């Protein structure tokens, strides 16, 4: 069953204008051989909004997020990010678009041969976004302060705990001041306390910088604390969509399975 609410705007019925869509996923399909991972999946992300895609492990959440960022090409359907169709962009245009879209990997993907400071400087220098060493220092310091790890600039990723690595990965994403952040399982593998800290940090980033976020997760606490809206990914489709409470209170067995 495909819920009628899927991909529909969630703003209230009041007279306010509809919020701007910064990311749209329209009827996207993706298969690997006979394994149909995404089937007719649709979703809209609005400016300043946090949307969580909730699904079981192996349900295609990471495939979806990799299609959005252009690491995988969908077999069918259309993905637009900040008004640009990802599939039709040249390499240069895609690289330019990626400066506005942060991606927090599940494994953090910090460059382990570089210090924390060098990790943060890498995307900055690739796009010539800092014009002087002083400006670089200021941006690195600001990004590290945002995640509460200002003292770690000289450390290597191997010297950090799991939660610290996650924060540094987020700082590396934030340093480019993206409009959209894609979080791939941001709390997986973390203890409950650290996971809650990361959840609060996600909210804080949203409040401070007004970023939109698409969060892939199967962690209900993460969903509850970070989501303005939740989309249930079941059998490759957007099964249902709504606030955490709306989906939790749905009587159907599929939704109940997630929130039980």
């Amino acid at each position, binding site marked *: 069953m495909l819920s009628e609410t899927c991909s529909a705007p969630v703003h209230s019925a009041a007279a306010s204008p509809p919020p701007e869509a910064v990311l749209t996923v329209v009827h996207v399909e993706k298969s690997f051989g006979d394994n149909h991972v995404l089937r007719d999946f649709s979703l809209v992300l609005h400016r300043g909004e946090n949307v969580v895609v909730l699904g079981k492990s192996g349900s295609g959440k990471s495939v979806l997020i*990799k299609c959005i960022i252009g690491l995988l090409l969908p077999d069918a359907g259309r993905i637009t990010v900040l008004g640009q169709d990802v599939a039709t962009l040249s390499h240069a245009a895609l690289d330019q678009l990626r400066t506005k879209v942060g*991606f927090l990997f599940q494994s953090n993907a910090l460059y*382990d041969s570089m210090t924390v400071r060098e990790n943060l400087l890498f*995307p900055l220098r*690739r796009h010539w976004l800092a014009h002087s060493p002083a400006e670089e220092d200021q941006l690195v310091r600001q990004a590290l302060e945002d995640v509460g790890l200002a003292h770690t600039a000289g450390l290597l990723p191997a010297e950090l705990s799991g939660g610290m690595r996650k924060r540094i990965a987020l700082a590396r994403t934030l340093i480019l001041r993206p409009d959209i952040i894609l979080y791939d399982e941001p709390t997986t593998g973390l203890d409950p306390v650290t996971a809650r800290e990361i959840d609060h940090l996600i909210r804080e980033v949203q409040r401070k910088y007004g970023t939109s976020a698409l969060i892939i997760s199967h962690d209900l606490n993460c969903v509850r604390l970070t989501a303005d809206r939740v989309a249930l990914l079941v059998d490759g489709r957007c099964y249902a969509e709504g606030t955490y409470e709306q989906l939790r209170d749905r009587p159907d067995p599929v939704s109940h399975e997630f929130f039980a």
Partner: protein
Amino acid sequence: MPHPTILASTGALTHFAGRFFREVVRPRYEVQEWLYQCYVVGYQSLPLVGSTAFIMGLVLTLRLRPTMVQFGAESWIPTMVGLTIIREMGPIITALMVAGKVSSNIGAELGSMRVTEQIDSMEVSGTNPFKYLVVTRVLATTLMLPVLTIVADAISLYASYLGVNMQGVTTLALFSHNILGRLNFSDITAAVVKTFCFGFAIGLIGCYKGYYADKGTEGVGQAANSAVVVSSLAVFILDLLAVQVCLVLGIA
């Protein structure tokens, strides 16, 4: 997934090489990373290559001497050692040392970056990982191996000079004259040209194995291991081809 056949692997490697030639001419040029890789491949390999070359020159001279004395051809030792080192032993030993040290290092490094999503991370941060990681490393090995070989040849010949003087007396001037008198310019150019090819093969195979590593940490180990094995084998095959080409062109 079944193991790819040798033909399929060769095809994939050729495709990888084609991508290298396409990417190497396109901007943006990663000069800083390339210089760093030249430092890693060239300067950091110098102690290993230098000590190997020294031992090779010394041992070759000491082992050759009794036979040459037996035939009353003691004065030919510098010429024989010089030609052997400059034409064959210098390039081959240096290439094998670099294959063992650098190719495995590249295979493990890129393999580890692949399985921990660092290569994907580079791509989503707007960096072409092929250009940044592969092109710089292949260019570095291609350009540094000839330099290392020339240094290794010089060290090896000096070790040979010491070897000759351990059981006899000769001057450095006479030793050098004996070598240079029998050496053609084509001996040096042929040796240098083939070291470019060795360096290219070592870098390319190391990068290919690492760039397409999978299966987690096991895959990283396999990438490092097969990078050494395949690049060492490639060095011998290329050397055989070089010998044939030299014979056809009448160089040797």
